[in-house]
């Protein structure tokens, strides 16, 4: 079917302004195929069903809108952790600021280096998981990423890794427009924790493809951070083997526009997938969108989605979550909760929690609520002498706690909890 004119024109204009990166080696084919996929499906417009709540215009425009760099004296998130640090500045790998990339049980390479080799394991994954994630819902910005990603990291995990790998994204240029693509392969029985933090760029398009083999586990925690004007669209595409585990948590504070898509395919029996997110939105321009699609295609798998959004001063929170249980995926346990807390009358919470079930012996449930802070609880705290602002923060933190509890590593959970408290406090 021909694309609507408005969409075709926008897509043509955007694609004309980009050139496929040189030296793609084995990835040339993947990039070209991704490019033709983008051209065929067109870049998203507000009229698309999956963008009805989030206007993608600033994500698809030719030039990235400028974003001021947020000045703060606080130490970066995860700074005190024992970790392997990999730094990107405005979407470009910074070898000097990064740690040595060698670590027992992991092979880490820059994407461009990996592409320079004749044969590479990442060939079987680069753009492959992303492509799988395009049905039944099209994700053109992820395909655009596969075609035009300028940098990224590839990680192959063969053992249980002793410390987390931390991708830190710094934002220094007000008009930077970064496209990063990472590929992670966790081999059978291996496990790794991947941390991500930082605002990355004025506009950031990131794709993370993760293959989790049988009995392997992948933990992911990110803190999207604090620049007020940045825009980001991110996509996680993952495929899970038998008895494997995937756990991802995202904390988002500030940013004009954030769209986090997570596409999970449970293909091996007894696999577990948890995705959670907490976001605090402040201001009329703030829009935070979590779009999750979990496909159960094996027996006895468990999936869990926990999303909490605190919104004030006219901020908008969006949740679009879906659990698809394919025929034969019996004994599926699917859970999904999305909650909005509106701290004032101008803020919006828009949710579309979907279930699509083709197997009869499953337990799937979802819930979605939205409302203001509980007046009684607020009154209780105030009657005990807690000032209103502080009481509001306490209740807000309590509201977000359920999502933070999804972080398995206590040290990291504590740190993020403390950060959140500080940030809420500083705003007051």
């Amino acid at each position, binding site marked *: 079917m021909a694309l609507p004119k408005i969409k075709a024109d926008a897509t043509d204009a955007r694609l004309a302004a980009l050139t496929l990166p040189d030296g793609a080696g084995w990835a040339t084919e993947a990039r070209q195929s991704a490019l033709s996929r983008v051209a065929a499906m067109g870049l998203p417009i507000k009229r698309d*069903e999956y963008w009805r709540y989030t206007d993608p215009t600033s994500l698809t425009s030719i030039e990235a809108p400028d974003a001021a760099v947020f000045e703060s004296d606080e130490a970066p998130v995860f700074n005190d952790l024992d970790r392997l640090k990999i730094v990107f500045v405005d979407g470009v790998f910074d070898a000097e600021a990064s740690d040595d990339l060698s670590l027992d049980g992991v092979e880490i390479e820059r994407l461009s280096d990996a592409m320079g080799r004749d044969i590479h394991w990442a060939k079987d994954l680069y753009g492959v998981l992303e492509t799988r994630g395009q049905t039944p819902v099209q994700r053109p910005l992820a395909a655009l990423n596969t075609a035009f990603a300028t940098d990224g990291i590839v990680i192959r995990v063969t053992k249980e890794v002793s410390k987390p790998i931390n991708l830190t994204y710094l934002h220094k240029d007000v008009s930077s427009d970064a496209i990063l693509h990472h590929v992670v392969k966790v081999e059978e029985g291996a496990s790794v924790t991947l941390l991500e933090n930082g605002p990355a760029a004025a506009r950031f398009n990131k794709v993370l493809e993760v293959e989790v083999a049988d009995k392997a586990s992948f933990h992911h925690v990110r803190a999207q951070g604090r620049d007020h004007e940045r825009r980001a669209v991110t996509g996680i595409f993952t495929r899970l083997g038998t008895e494997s585990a995937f756990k991802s948590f995202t904390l988002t504070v500030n940013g004009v526009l954030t769209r986090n898509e997570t596409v999970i395919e449970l293909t091996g029996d007894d696999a577990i997938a948890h995705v959670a997110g907490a976001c605090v939105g402040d201001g009329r321009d703030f829009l935070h969108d979590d779009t999750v699609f979990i496909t159960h295609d094996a027996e006895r798998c468990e999936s869990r989605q926990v999303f909490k959004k605190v919104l004030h001063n006219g901020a908008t929170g969006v949740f679009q979550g879906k659990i698809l249980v394919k*025929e*034969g995926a*019996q004994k599926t346990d699917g859970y999904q909760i999305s909650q*909005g807390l*509106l*701290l*004032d*009358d*101008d*803020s*919006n*919470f*828009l*949710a*579309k*929690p*979907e*279930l*699509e*079930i*083709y*197997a*009869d*012996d*499953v*337990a*799937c*449930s*979802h*819930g*979605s*609520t*939205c*409302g*203001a802070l509980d007046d009684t609880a607020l009154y209780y705290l105030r009657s005990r002498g807690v000032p209103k602002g502080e009481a509001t923060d306490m209740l807000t933190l309590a509201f977000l706690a359920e999502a933070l509890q999804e972080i398995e590593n206590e040290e990291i959970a504590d740190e993020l909890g403390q950060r959140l408290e500080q940030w809420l406090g500083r705003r007051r």
Partner: protein
Amino acid sequence: MAALDRPELDVKEGVDQDTVDAVAKLSGKYKYGWETEIEMEYAPKGVNPDIVRLISEKNEEPEWMTEWRLAAFERWETMTEPKWAMVNYPEIDFQDQYYYARPKSMVEKPKSLDDVDPKLLETYKKLGIPLKEQMILAGVEGAEDYKEGERKVAVDAVFDSVSVGTTFKKELEKAGVIFCSISEAIKNHPELVKKYLGSVVPVSDNYYATLNSAVFSDGSFVYIPPNTRCPMELSTYFRINAENTGQFERTLIIADKGSYVSYLEGCTAPQRDTAQLHAAVVEIIVEEDAEVKYSTVQNWFPGDENGKGGIYNFVTKRADCRGDRSKVMWTQVETGSAVTWKYPSCILRGNDSQGEFYSIAIANNYQQADTGTKMIHLGKNTKSRIVSKGISAGKAQNTYRGLVSMHPKAKNSRNYTQCDSLLIGSQCGAHTVPYIEVKNNSSRVEHEATTSKVDDDQLFYCRQRGMDEEEAVALVVNGFCKEVLQALPMEFAMEAQQLVAISLEGSVG
């Protein structure tokens, strides 16, 4: 049916055999699949401005109505069929069917019910329309002298494209209630029709509604004057009989200030190999302090066990709670139709207005149902409640699709939504697609789709009286079901009774 007939069917734990049997019985052999052999008069096949004019002419409509229809048709030609629903059906050739069919005996409109073709009356008798009404439909003398205290239901019977007759007209007139076919209303009450028709579902609302606006042939019209409680329940019975004919009926209900009416709708069609189109529009206007209850048992032919034939039911139903403290309640039991596309909605415009939606949708064999509601909260302190139960069996697909929207000005509003689904057999599907849009913080919205979520207080009460947990749950669930079903008319008592037997234990959200 095949899957359900087998007693060894592997059903999951928590679904008892009674439930399976009840569903089987209910969605079993289609009871209304027979056909009335009657001479029919058809408009030529297809739809174009001439057909639109012809329909208008047959209904002896004034010029403004014809123009209204033609404008709708022009609009329709620029539109495309919506494809977002989770239903699959072969492309419909809108030019390969009849848009107008009426029994020859109705060409000369019967002056009184005495003149109505006995075959038509026989048809309604066979469909189980209560005997007393039969007498009235047939014009039996004295039938209108009802004994005090007896339950009365006034019926407007629509057969293919025309209204056959309306009962209890005189008695309703005494109360000031207007209940007639819409074609009569256009002639006799043009001021009301002009004012309200298309004011809730605009001409260009959606593809099927626009088509309906152009070609609707008949339907019911209800006007309840201010501060009047309609003395009896009103009901319309739709029967599709002619082959290859689409039915496009239009219902317009106006409840003026402080009035109350309960309206019932039933529908059936003969069993045929080819699918037939039904695209209706129902508009309800609820003024200040008025209340409308609208109940449907939708039992169009669902197609055979191989998915052959059946009605494509593409319906637009919407209530506009214009006045403060107005209230509307939709109750629907969807058992028929091969494909259902139906979202009875409430626009809660008046302050303190209320909307309720109770639905039980049962899909079996190859049936596909995509149904739900929209609750649009515009006024302050508005309340809505959605309870939806979907049951899928065989190879059926059942989707709940709903929207709850709290506008910035709808302060202190409240919504509660619960939708449960039950799957019987491993080849069917159950889906939930809710949209929740909250734009102010004094409103509360809760959506849940969980299993066996019964009210804790009720459970506690039962347990306190010595029931064990299971008994208590059964009682509460049953009681809840009855709450939905009791709102249904007597005509549907049989279905309702069978429905009560269905427990929704072991449901999935």
